[in-house]
């Protein structure tokens, strides 16, 4: 089953066959766990995680869940409209991001021949866009464009440009240069050469990234309403604000069902797309048409055209639903200028540093828990060690459902049950890290070469011995790589949990924007970008050392 959140580059990776005796492990394989372990010990003290607190928290949560039932959704038409708005935000935002990413990636790729500063600018924009979570962009755009889905769609677009742009850059750099040179030699201009060759060659991969990102963005847009940026999150925010827990529970249930249905649809679409990619390979792309020079129609061509048309229509409909008028744009422009000028000079206080630090500690501590529990779940979901298929299916089902709930929703529940503070955020992150890590590890364990295990079993090794000696060495690189990726994602999440009071920098960020203290906003954003980019670079470095 294709994942929604598989880290790029580890997707479908099949490890090289394990050598008879694994080579000495690189330093990163023990340094990274050591660092994580140290941070975790510190984090447990900082966040004040005690078994007693967890036990007490468990009671509080049970009591809260009791107050949530019987769940109710409130007026259905209103909720349905918000569901539609959620999809519109995601589609419009993803579409804008895709369109913006094309020139940005063309400029960022090492094949770009224009001025150096343009390339630098494109690369910087991509990095910054990736580092700032969509919920943070949403806070900013709500300030600029006012409450509503326009802010949400722009937030989605601004954050998605980073990932789509990065992936497109990689594709542009990898595709063959021969067509580009050949068409360039015919005297076509740069723009024509780009469209005819680079763009055309990259199109299938670009389409799959955009669909993959759309899937992520629907998740993201379902919670943007928490800061007033439209979508179903608006209803969630309202019911929590008025302490209407049964309604909040109903809305959370709707979000979960929505995301699960979409996961299913996205799997079906991806399968259809990849099957179609195969069937034009060995036949004519088009049948003969009316004239020699015009192609005729066949089922695949009809399918492709209909898919394209549907995409364009959906995008335009979604855009127009955002009700962006010239008037509103003008006012937004004024607000944006006011904010940008308000950013100077940025202010960086000890409080901000503390908030960033807390986000980092929450994320890394939760990652450790998530990775350890996730590993256990993954081992039980695959049949290398335990051969109980039912158990595997059940665990995978639970993980899918748990992953269906956005992190911040867990945070809301924990804050309501346990009160404000990093403990609620830590628990929320630990749950989502567990779900994420177990998904990654399950996929990785399923992909390992069973040969060495079989061989060891054949010579009479016990199942645990065979697993440790035969499977573990193959699994270590993807274990470390995926753990780092989990930490990377957790950090971005933990930066926004403060918006609902679950600790970290998000609280200060939200407050600085709503109280128009833009100098602090700028300081927080710069600090956040620096921390996220640094952690990402370290993770990338470590991953290269290990894999």
């Amino acid at each position, binding site marked *: 089953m294709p994942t929604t959140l598989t880290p790029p580059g580890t997707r479908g990776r099949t490890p090289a066959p394990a050598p008879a005796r694994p080579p000495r492990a690189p330093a990163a394989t023990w340094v990274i766990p050591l660092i994580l372990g140290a941070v975790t010990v510190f984090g447990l003290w900082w966040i004040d995680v005690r078994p007693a607190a967890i036990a007490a928290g468990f009671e509080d949560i049970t009591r809260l869940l009791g107050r949530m039932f019987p769940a109710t959704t409130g007026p259905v038409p209103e909720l349905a409209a918000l569901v539609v708005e959620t999809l519109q935000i995601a589609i419009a935002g993803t579409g804008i991001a895709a369109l913006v990413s094309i020139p940005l990636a063309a400029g960022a790729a090492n094949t770009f021949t224009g001025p150096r500063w343009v390339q630098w600018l494109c690369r910087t924009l991509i990095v910054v866009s990736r580092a700032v979570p969509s919920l943070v962009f949403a806070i900013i755009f709500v300030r600029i464009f006012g409450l509503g889905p326009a802010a949400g769609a722009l937030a989605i677009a601004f954050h998605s440009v980073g990932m789509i742009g990065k992936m497109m850059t990689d594709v542009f750099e990898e595709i063959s240069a021969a067509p580009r040179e*050949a068409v360039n030699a015919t005297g076509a201009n740069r723009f024509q050469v780009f469209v005819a060759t680079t763009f055309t060659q990259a199109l299938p991969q670009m389409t799959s990234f955009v669909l993959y990102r759309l899937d992520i963005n629907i998740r993201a847009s379902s919670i943007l309403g928490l800061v007033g940026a439209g979508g179903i999150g608006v209803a969630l925010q309202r019911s929590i604000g008025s302490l209407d827990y049964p309604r909040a529970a109903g809305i959370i249930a709707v979000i979960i069902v929505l995301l699960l249905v979409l996961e299913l649809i996205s799997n079906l679409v991806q399968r259809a797309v990849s099957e179609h990619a195969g069937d034009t390979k060995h036949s004519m792309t088009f049948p003969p048409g009316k004239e020699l020079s015009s192609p005729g129609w066949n089922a695949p061509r009809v399918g492709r055209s209909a898919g394209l048309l549907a995409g364009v229509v959906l995008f335009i409909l979604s855009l127009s639903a955002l009700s962006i008028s010239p008037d509103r744009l003008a006012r937004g422009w004024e607000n944006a200028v006011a904010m940008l000028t308000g950013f100077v000079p940025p202010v960086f206080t000890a409080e901000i540093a503390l908030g960033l630090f807390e986000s980092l500690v929450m994320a890394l501590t939760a990652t450790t828990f998530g990775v350890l529990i996730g590993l256990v779940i993954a081992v039980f979901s695959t049949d290398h060690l335990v051969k109980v298929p039912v158990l595997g299916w059940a665990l995978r089902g639970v993980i899918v459902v748990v992953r269906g709930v956005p992190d911040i929703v867990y945070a809301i529940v924990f804050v309501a049950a346990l009160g404000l503070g990093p403990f609620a955020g830590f628990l929320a992150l630990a749950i989502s890290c567990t779900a994420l890590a177990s998904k990654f590890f399950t996929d990785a364990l399923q992909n390992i070469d069973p040969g060495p295990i079989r061989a060891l079993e054949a010579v009479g090794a016990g199942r645990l011995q065979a697993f440790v000696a035969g499977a573990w060495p193959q699994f270590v690189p993807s274990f470390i790589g995926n753990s780092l990726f989990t930490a990377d994602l957790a950090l971005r999440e933990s930066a926004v949990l403060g918006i609902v009071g679950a600790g970290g920098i998000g609280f200060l960020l939200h407050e600085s924007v709503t109280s128009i203290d833009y100098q602090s906003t700028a300081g927080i954003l710069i600090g956040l970008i620096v921390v996220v980019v640094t952690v990402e670079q370290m993770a990338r470095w470590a991953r290269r050392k290990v894999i």
Partner: protein
Amino acid sequence: MTLEKPAAETAQHSPSITLDGVVKRFGDNTVLHGVDLEIHPGEFIALVGPSGAGKSTLLRLLNGSHSPTEGRVQVLGREPVRCSRRELRRLRTEIGFVFQQFGLVGRLTALENVLMGALGTLSMPRYGIMTYPKQLRERAVENLERVGLVDQRFQRCDTLSGGQQQRVAIARMLMQDARLVLADEPVASLDPAASISVLETLKKLSAEDGFTVVCSLHQVDLALEVSDRIVAVRDGQFILDKPTNATGEPEIRAIYQAHRGA
């Protein structure tokens, strides 16, 4: 060394290409050591020589991809180094280029790849066969017919054989109505049968349309078979320049042998 005058020079046209003491260096590496050459309209020149001799560099000088370190390169009455970006693009629309690696977009049909040859006459980018004007589409089909691939016009290029792909690339080149065609090892990745058939197609088209061809080859027998005139390059110098019918095979073989012996 004195070079014999090529027979075709009696033709009363201004030369397609004139090289005048051309030196090309990449850093300290001198790739062409002051070469002179005159090529006349309609000639089919085979540029032979071992790998690393400087053949590709020479062809790139001719379409303005490289500029000479010293000396003068004149192509179709213009000097690529003196051309502005726009003028260079114009010049390139008049020079067809055929590559060893074909340079086709594999996931597109043969027809669409051929149509790309006409982009230089259009101002905007195109995507999809039907975005090109009808008259260009008809010419593209004709050109595919001329290289014997009209039935494959809607086939993905990456499903064609190597020889077929190079024919598609030639049909794309034909869209330019070029007066000069440069081909850099066009058959180096093809099997012998496809090689000879591709070169003969190129020869036939050049005879019909009257375009000049400068084609680098490393197989001597093919050069003898299709060219009017052979220019042999070794270590950045022309060591032979003769009409093909006045050149014996042993004479050229000797070039390679002398090189290997050295």
